[in-house]
């Protein structure tokens, strides 16, 4: 398998140079630029897809009918597609291109296995295509940036660790350069940490497999793809944002810093400003980042100690981040005069500047008082786009403009077009983020505004939405500019590629093989610093220490959260969702409702006045996964069952939100009013939840879960009919009824009488209606009563 060394007698004979591991211990080898070409093209193509999806859903924010009335083009389903495409397809392929190009050169070695390189490339593209198919179909775990369902999760683990990780580390082990350059450290941190985050945030029970094993019945395709995370509520929230924040850190930051430390000196033709600073930058960043996740959960039901810990470490993170930015910018010393005429340097300089701005803003937003205003508003959206478009986007473009002519072995087709791309991208980002900062701050201030009588100045949520529409249009315009720039880049690269030579030239390089590290008799004392220099030469040892460094933060936060009882005080009246509510909850997740609605009332006066009693940790102990959300494009729903319990209202609202709330930007969910609910799947859903410890008692026996769901569906349908909605026969079999049952339940547990609730066995006394009913017992309207054998 290894193909590190290529003996080329023909070449050696003609050039008179040694070949293979010939004279003088020199070895000749070629770099595998074919795989870099593949990843570079994939970056360009997926980038355009991601930007297009972004513009499409941005238009829907201002003009909801732009979803064309299809379920698979609605905002809730496409927003995860956009984020996954931007993060894992665009940025992912970009970092792979950077890593494959620079690792080979920094190690003076070809990638260990061409086969693994190709498996990595095609495996990753297959994962992206799977995401592009499943997410619009509503197949999702409902956890931000970790939406992909369990079979795809398994594929990610295999491709990331088995193909990419093994190939990378074997290349490091077989390198010909003793010192591992700092860019490689960032790549190491990326690979091990992303693997750790992915595994721990994606521990689930697949409902379809449970159904298959328990009942011996083949589940429906929908159920087969469904899984529930093993964590619930507060613990799931901590785990998810530990993952979510560190996905930003170790997928969108550390590999791009590696990219910066390699490609910026290349483009500037200058060495890195301070290698010593880069060492401090690396260890401080890697150690601090992992702690910062809880700042996404300020004032939520997460215990205060964890949120404070996240805040403190986030603020500390500012320093290493700026150390890196300064190191990047000062690398250009002596090359600033080239900036005006070199679009590559322009991309890099503005990209690094955006890194500095984002990493100043991030710590600022993590401060609780600032977060009070910014959380759930568009401010966060502006922040992530300044990072994703400004830092990741511009760094990627800079790298591609440097790389593509070299990969195509010709000149760039047009420098002018590259310059035009730079300005379109930069002005586009500026328009995007400035308008959305405006939207975020405006809405945040409106939510908390009180009039002189002490009442909310904008009690109707919609008042705080319609005011944002002009800013949403500016965002669309900014996004279009960014997209247009990327299309220019694609055209430029296609023209460049057309000028490629008939056959790519393969450059043969030569370097001595690496001899085993010398064991010196010197003692490595702490004060000598030699111990670290020794790690820098030993990839396995170095990797282990990086893993220990990143694991400490996660463990110190997670262990107390999972083991300290006082973190999640139980509430006597909180019981599991009924089977129908559970099915409704799964529809809520599939439709991506959490992308627009939070379920977390913070203990802030403005929120309790608007939404009701603040959310308690004990209320979400059966929430696999938690659904607290991160953005309020619509109002919070944590107490929806208390404040808005009318079934007919919800039915009509799904049909035409604008009719109920003039000015609403929620799209119509008409299809849910006619889509049939698969009652048989409910059995598998309940069984999987029971496996996670949810006390479903007799509902896991036989078809009891289905009977229970049908009975409740009938009750909800009857209520819709009684409140002036369509007749029972038109509603009781639909998905909408299940979703309404779920919404009617939200936040109600707190108001139940503890004497009426058996928390240990809440369904203990359940007997299917068919067994209870006597002949002639039924509704007066003559509609069909649910039967056990339905």
């Amino acid at each position: 398998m290894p193909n590190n060394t290529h003996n080329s007698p023909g070449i050696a004979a003609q050039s008179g140079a040694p070949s293979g591991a010939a004279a003088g211990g020199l070895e000749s080898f070629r770099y595998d630029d074919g795989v870099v070409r593949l990843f570079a093209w994939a970056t360009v193509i997926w980038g355009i897809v991601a930007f297009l999806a972004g513009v499409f859903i941005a238009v829907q924010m201002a003009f909801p009918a732009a979803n064309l009335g299809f379920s698979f083009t609605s905002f809730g389903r496409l927003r995860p597609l956009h984020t996954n495409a931007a993060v894992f397809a665009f940025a992912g392929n970009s970092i792979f291109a950077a890593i494959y190009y620079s690792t080979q050169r920094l190690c003076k070695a070809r990638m260990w296995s061409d086969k693994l390189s190709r498996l990595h490339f095609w495996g990753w593209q297959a994962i992206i295509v799977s995401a592009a198919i499943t997410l619009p179909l509503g197949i999702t775990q409902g956890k931000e940036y970790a939406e992909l369902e369990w079979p795809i999760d398994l594929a990610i683990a295999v491709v990331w660790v088995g193909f990419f990780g093994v190939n990378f580390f074997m290349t490091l082990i077989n390198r010909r350069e003793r010192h591992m350059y700092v860019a490689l450290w960032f790549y190491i941190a990326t690979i091990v940490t992303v693997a750790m985050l992915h595994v721990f945030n994606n521990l689930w029970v697949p409902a379809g497999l449970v159904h298959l094993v328990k009942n011996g019945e083949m589940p429906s395709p929908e159920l087969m793809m469904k899984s529930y995370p093993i964590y619930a509520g507060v613990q799931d929230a901590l785990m998810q944002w530990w993952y979510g924040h560190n996905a930003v850190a170790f997928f969108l930051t550390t590999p791009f810093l590696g990219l910066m430390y390699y490609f910026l000196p290349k483009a500037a033709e200058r060495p890195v400003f301070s290698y010593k600073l880069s060492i401090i930058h690396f260890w401080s960043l890697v150690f601090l980042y992992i702690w910062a996740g809880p700042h996404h959960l300020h004032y939520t039901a997460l215990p205060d100690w964890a949120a404070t810990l996240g805040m403190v470490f986030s603020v500390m993170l500012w320093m290493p981040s700026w150390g890196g930015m300064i190191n990047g910018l000062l690398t250009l010393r002596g090359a600033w005069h080239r900036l005006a005429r070199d679009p590559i340097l322009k991309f890099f300089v503005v990209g690094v500047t955006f890194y500095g701005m984002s990493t100043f803003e991030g710590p600022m937003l993590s401060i609780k008082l600032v977060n009070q205003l910014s959380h759930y508003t568009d401010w966060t959206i502006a922040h992530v786009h300044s990072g994703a478009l400004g830092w990741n986007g511009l760094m990627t473009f800079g790298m591609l403009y440097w790389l593509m002519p070299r990969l195509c072995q010709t000149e760039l087709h047009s420098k002018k077009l590259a310059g035009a791309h730079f300005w379109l991208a930069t002005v586009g980002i500026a328009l995007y983020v400035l308008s959305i900062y405006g939207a975020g701050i405006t809405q945040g201030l409106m939510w908390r505004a009180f009039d002189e009588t002490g009442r909310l100045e904008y009690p109707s949520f919609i008042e705080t939405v319609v005011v944002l529409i002009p800013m949403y249009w500016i965002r669309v315009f900014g996004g279009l500019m960014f997209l247009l720039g990327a299309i220019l880049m694609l055209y430029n690269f296609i023209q460049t590629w057309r000028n490629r030579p008939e056959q790519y030239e393969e450059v043969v390089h030569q370097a001595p093989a690496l001899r085993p590290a010398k064991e010196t008799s010197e003692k490595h004392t702490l004060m000598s610093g030699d111990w670290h220099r020794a790690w820098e030469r030993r990839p396995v040892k170095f990797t282990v220490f990086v893993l220990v460094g990143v694991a400490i933060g996660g463990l110190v936060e997670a262990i107390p959260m999972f083991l300290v009882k006082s973190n999640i005080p139980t509430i006597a009246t909180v019981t599991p969702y009924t089977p129908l509510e559970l099915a409704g909850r799964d529809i809520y997740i599939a439709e991506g409702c959490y992308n627009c609605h939070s379920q977390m009332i913070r203990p802030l006066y403005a929120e309790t006045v608007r939404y009701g009693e603040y959310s308690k940790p004990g209320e979400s102990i059966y929430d696999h996964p938690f659904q607290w959300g991160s953005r309020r494009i619509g109002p919070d729903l944590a107490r929806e069952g208390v404040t808005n319990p009318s079934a007919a209202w919800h039915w009509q609202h799904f049909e035409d939100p604008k009719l109920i709330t003039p000015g609403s930007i929620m799209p119509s969910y008409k299809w849910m009013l006619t889509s049939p609910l698969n009652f048989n799947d409910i059995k598998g859903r309940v069984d999987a939840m029971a496996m996670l410890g949810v006390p479903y008692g007799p509902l896991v026996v036989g078809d009891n879960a289905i009977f229970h769901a049908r009975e409740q569906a009938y009750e909800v349908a009857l209520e819709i009919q009684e409140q002036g909605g369509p007749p029972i026969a038109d509603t009781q079999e639909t998905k909408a009824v299940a979703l309404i049952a779920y919404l009617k339940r939200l936040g109600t547990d707190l108001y139940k009488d503890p004497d009426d609730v058996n928390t240990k066995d809440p369904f203990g006394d359940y007997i299917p209606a068919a067994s209870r009913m006597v002949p002639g017992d039924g509704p007066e309207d003559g509609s069909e009563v649910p039967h056990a054998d339905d």
Partner: protein
Amino acid sequence: MRMTDLMSGAALSLFPMIGLVIFGLIFLAMTVRVLRSSNSEARRHSAMPLEEGATLARTDRTPRELASNPNAPERTDA
């Protein structure tokens, strides 16, 4: 005594403290390493992206062609 009881008995303020102390130690160790390292070594390392290794030869044949018939004549300009 279960692990849950043990952890519940420990003061929560201990956990953030542990984190800060560990970070302080790592930061200190790194600072020592950086201050003690030689400037010439740092300068050499900082220029590593600019090196690509000695170029031995150029060939316009694909790796597959080279693998199947490495001795066939070809253009070189080393």
